[in-house]
């Protein structure tokens, strides 16, 4: 008995350094994958749930191949990293964004492979993670059905097309909207290998990186991304992206042509 107890203490001591950050807090969404994802993504960093991380999405997942989500952490100071996560997707992380000289705001569309929690996790300069989100009910197959452009067969004709625009906002930000033509193949569809945009950066005229992100195939086909980057009304923004085949994508955004954003959102 005594021996068993001391063995137990020894095991706990061995495990203690690895578990220094303590177990992640109990999940208000009751997700079966919360502990596993929290350990992988947050490691030993402290984590707590915080409604100031505003994760917005429609009341219905009308299209499980393209479900729009906004993570808006503008109410929180010192955000250095933002992760968009759907717990029960086979590719759980969609975007890992670093708003270096940008507001902590990102909007995109993701695939949903089934009913799942959809979360935003933001990391502060202190290392602290703040997490929020909600359950989304969805029909199955967002990740495991072939993209529309694969079915139509025209994906290669449009690969590399980038559309976008930039709007000056209040508080010295510029709102950037980008949309890429890309099949964003998940690798989960028979005989179609993984192929997706994997990196995106927005830089200013001096080559300063305003924001950059890693992107996974759980972002919807033809990725659409909205950011709010620093800069005045004379900013000239450059966009650089790369996909998993090493193909580079480049685009230029000229602000001067644009009218200010109505309402200054």
């Amino acid at each position, binding site marked *: 008995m005594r021996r068993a107890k001391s063995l137990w203490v020894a095991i706990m001591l061995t495990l203690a350094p690895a578990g220094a950050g303590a177990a992640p807090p109990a999940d208000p969404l009751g997700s079966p994958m919360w502990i596993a994802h929290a350990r992988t993504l947050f490691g030993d960093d402290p984590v707590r749930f915080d409604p100031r991380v505003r994760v917005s999405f*429609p009341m219905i997942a*009308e299209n499980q191949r393209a479900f729009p*989500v906004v993570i808006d952490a503008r109410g929180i100071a010192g955000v250095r990293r933002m992760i968009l996560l759907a717990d029960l997707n086979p590719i759980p992380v969609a975007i890992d964004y670093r708003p270096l000289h940008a507001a902590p705001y990102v909007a995109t569309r993701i695939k949903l492979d089934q009913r799942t929690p959809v979360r935003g996790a933001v990391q502060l300069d202190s290392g602290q993670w703040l997490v929020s989100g909600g359950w989304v009910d969805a029909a199955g197959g967002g990740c495991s059905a072939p993209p529309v452009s694969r079915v139509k067969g025209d994906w290669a004709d449009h690969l590399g*097309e980038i559309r976008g*625009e930039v709007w000056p906002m209040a508080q010295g930000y510029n709102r950037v909207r980008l949309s890429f033509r890309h099949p964003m193949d998940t690798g989960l569809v028979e005989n179609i290998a993984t192929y997706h945009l994997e990196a995106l950066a927005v830089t200013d005229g001096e080559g300063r990186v305003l924001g950059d992100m890693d992107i996974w195939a759980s972002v919807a086909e033809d990725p*659409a991304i909205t950011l709010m980057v620093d800069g005045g009304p004379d900013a000239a923004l450059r966009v650089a992206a790369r996909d998993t085949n090493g193909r580079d994508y480049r685009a230029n955004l000229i602000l001067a042509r644009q009218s200010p954003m109505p309402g200054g959102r």
Partner: protein
Amino acid sequence: MKLSRRAMLGGIAGLAKMPARAADYSITAVPVGDGIWMVRGADEPIEEHNGGAIANIAIIATPAGTVLWECGPSLRYGRALRQVAEQLTGQRIIRVYVSHLHPDHGLGLAAFDPAIVAALPGTIAALAAQGQGYADGMYRLLGDWMRGTDLILPGRTIMAAQEDFGGRVLRLLALSGHSSADLALLDERSGLLLAGDLVFHDRAPSTPTADLAAWRASLDQLKALPHGGVLPGHGPLDPTGTAAIAQTRDWIDWLEGALTQAVRDGLDMVEAGDLPIPARFARMAAARYEVQRSVSHLYPGIEAALLPRIDVKSAP
């Protein structure tokens, strides 16, 4: 101890806290003209508690037999509807019209002989291509309500502009816009126009398969067609015959304009789905729900049309 299968089943039945079987549909037919009744759908999304019975249905008595306009979302609904209609008229059902491909209007045809079910050729083709996907979606949303419902295609292709049932003439209009093929029906006896989902009334229009330009053209045709009241696809009967057509037109015009402006203003899809809905639509049921669905249907196309190309050849 070993349990017999019967004891096991009894035990399971005894546990029946969980809804082993959903309730039956309650179908109420309200007279809306000489020999024509309306069965009102719920002005709601397709949900477990309404069993998918959200589309309006009409029952028409003719000298040749009973005619149904639409047949509901499921086999169970179709069977219940047949019973109600045949008791009401005292005559067997000889024709069922399905206005378009959406499952709340036509999956109930599993309860009828396909040889008496008629639809436009475009509707039958669309059902053959997409009907199984819609049926799968209905099973996911409605569970046991759908039990036994298979996708069955209408057996009669509508090629004529009217059908005469022993002197009661039903005029058939082949239109489109809510979907690729939308049937409307004018009952000459009562003057009622059965508009299918080309016309919604105090219930927000849905756009999953819409072509808004074609929809406008169809609404123009319906407006110009001499008729009495309008029995819309969803929402209450419009006795004026003009209000519901005008409201549907107003909604799709507002929707397209608002979403186009939202793209111009730099809004993302989530933000576009939260746009204010004008006060004049305050009476419309499911308005926010349908706006958010429509954003999903229409926004990527508007973005592709309006956002400029900005890609440059990658520098060496």
